[in-house]
């Protein structure tokens, strides 16, 4: 029996919204989502495992989609019963991955289950849990139609960023204390909210959000009070001060967006997080590696939000000195990828577009 390679979706959710979506793997350009048009069909034993897959069945319970690490439970697919699960668990097979990667003949013998039944179940599980490759041309077409570029309101910054903030991307600002990161965040929020009339979510974890300063920035752009009030109303502010609350807030945002709940005029188009390092830094140091895990989780949440919902996200960070796994000297790096670097106060602001995938 040939072993089949599972393409695991990188943390993206398979969920039934208007389109059934699946996340593609990095080998195809790293861009997350694509849409399958057409009615979702239920595939069972006849599923073909190689080449392009038909769309995934939307009959999966929402908590199980996109997660191949899910435990085997009755009702996951037709043919998987409680007794089967009991017997599989007795021989150490608990999750979907375990079942699919094991040798079915051995399992059939050990658990005294029918080989045919196991093969059938495995096919169904593979069809339900694997990700789909996508053609590069389709991906490009889709990106052209779904991506938007948000201007930051500042011409030179726009030029540096190749005409603005791209939705679906995460841009990180880093800099020394007092160099102006919060000001840039505030002015981008003001510009997007006023000039582009889009909703903005500002997650503040340092207490640096001052509404009166935001008002000043908006007043600089328009004199009319009506517009100022509207612009301020489009900016939602959430105060979270530790990592778990921030993760909860991001997951709530994801939930709101996936339910397509219209919040006062439109979906959020820009997410500003000021700053990620404030919540992540208390976890570094000491001998626990939990800090890095939580940081990766936060990064994953931000990227998923950006890619799935077409948000432009802007977290800010400081130069974090990370000792990654003890590989020698401490390194100074931005916390996430593709950062715009702000230098210290003494030099004029030099913006360097740093393209590097840290994760």
């Amino acid at each position, binding site marked *: 029996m040939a072993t089949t390679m599972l393409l695991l979706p990188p943390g993206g959710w398979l969920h039934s919204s208007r389109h059934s979506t699946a996340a593609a793997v990095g080998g195809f350009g790293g861009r997350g989502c694509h849409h399958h048009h057409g009615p979702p069909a239920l595939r069972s034993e006849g599923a073909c495992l190689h080449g392009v897959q038909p769309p995934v069945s939307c009959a999966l319970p929402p908590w199980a989609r996109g997660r191949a*690490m899910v435990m085997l439970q009755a009702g996951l697919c037709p043919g998987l019963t409680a007794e089967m699960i009991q017997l599989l668990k007795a021989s150490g097979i608990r999750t979907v991955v375990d079942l699919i990667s094991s040798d079915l003949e051995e399992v059939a013998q050990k658990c005294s289950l029918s080989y045919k*039944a196991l093969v059938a179940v495995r096919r169904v599980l593979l069809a339900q849990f694997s990700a789909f490759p996508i053609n590069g041309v389709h991906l490009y077409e889709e990106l052209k139609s779904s991506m938007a570029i948000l201007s930051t309101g500042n011409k030179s910054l726009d030029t540096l960023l190749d005409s603005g903030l791209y939705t679906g991307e995460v841009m990180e600002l880093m800099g020394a204390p007092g160099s102006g990161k919060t*000001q840039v965040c505030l002015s981008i929020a003001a510009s997007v909210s006023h000039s582009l009339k889009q909703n903005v979510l500002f997650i503040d974890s340092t207490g640096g*959000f001052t509404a009166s300063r935001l008002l000043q920035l908006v007043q600089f752009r328009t004199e009319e009070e009506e517009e100022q009030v509207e612009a301020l109303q489009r900016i939602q502010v959430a105060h979270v001060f530790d990592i778990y609350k921030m993760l*909860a807030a991001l997951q709530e945002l994801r939930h709101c967006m996936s339910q397509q709940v219209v919040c006062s005029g439109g979906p959020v188009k820009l997410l500003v997080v000021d700053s990620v390092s404030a919540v992540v830094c208390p976890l570094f140091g000491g001998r626990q590696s939990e800090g890095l895990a939580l940081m990766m989780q936060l990064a994953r949440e931000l990227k998923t939000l950006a890619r799935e919902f077409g948000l432009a996200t802007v977290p800010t960070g400081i130069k974090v000195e990370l000792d990654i796994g003890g590989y020698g000297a401490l390194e100074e790096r931005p916390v996430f990828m593709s950062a715009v670097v702000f230098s210290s106060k003494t030099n004029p602001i030099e913006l360097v577009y740093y393209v590097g995938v840290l994760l």
Partner: protein
Amino acid sequence: MDRLRRERHVLGAGRARPEEEVAPGPTWVAPCRKPGSGGRAMQRDLGSLPLAPALRARLVGAGFSTAQELLEVGPCELSKEIGISNEEALETLQVIRQECDSDAARMGGDPTSLRTCTALELLEQEQAQGFVVTFCSVLDDILGGGVQLTKITEICGAPGVGKTQLCMQLAVDVQIPECFGGLAGEAVYIDTEGSFMVERVADIATACVQHCQLIAEAHQEEDHHKALETFSLESILSHIYYFRCHDYTELLAQIYLLPDFLSEHSKVRLVAVDGIAFPFRHDFEDLSLRTRLLNGLAQQLISIANDHKLAVILTNQMTTRIGQSQSTLVPALGESWGHAATIRLILHWDNNQRLATLYKSPSQKESTVPYCITPHGFRDVQPPPPSQTPEGSEMNPRKRPRIEEDKQ
């Protein structure tokens, strides 16, 4: 026969007949799931729940990945699955249930509620809340009205420049009644260096009360006189809650226990930590631990400031950074600490004159103003009368000049 039955079971339409062939032991049948019943809150990844790392590693090793899977299992099964005691399993489930419940409650009836508020509401709140005045009007101006509530203000300076004086002044000023433009609040003073002198606070408080009395006489209003009845030296001193911490453990404990104290004393509007650098600068071998503790402390302070609507003041020491050819005086505790404070004020000397520079602020410009310290407290600089002889220039500027100047 059994096998045949099972096969028919499997290849059939999947009608489960749980009454047959129920295996003994922990049941692993998934309960019927009502779609949408707190569904999303349960999908939280285990990594995002506040559990101990060892426990989390065991849960992941046993195959659990979301909160919902955990909640379906009872504590006995959980303890058997991952090999922990019953009490631990119960605790873990309680923690997770609390988290999910609070999520669900937040999302409750209104699925859009992210516990956010719009910038407009925040603006109204900010305009309604007051500031803590410093009695030095130029300093108040550059700060935008005084020390702001819900923010952390850090005061750095060389020894002897006036940081503790400013803290004591603010602890008195926060108690000024509202009709005089104050906040009528109370103050918490956490002292790590032992530089708090009650006699000095008494002097400052007396001067403050006299100042208010002068205003009341000038304006002759009803509520001024009423407020002055309760605003006296004894009441001021009795509303400053003083804590003395001798090392960093005590400081950390004090700050982490502060929310409980504040929930009993809800009128507190100022928390002053005099000397946050001192316990962390000596006897600390593990620098990464220091950074971690400091950052955790900063986050705790900002969350206290935000939840209880109070101002947090920290004083910091200075250290020398040695560059290639010169050395500069910079605030202590490193660069990562620089991000902790929202507003940074650096006090320094210029010959005989004390200056305050606003170094970092989200809403005000950088600027430098002079101030001076008198027997009455922190005050503006008055232009010196032309007859004064320049005797001060012979004195060492680092020593506190005992100038008797009459101020209001």
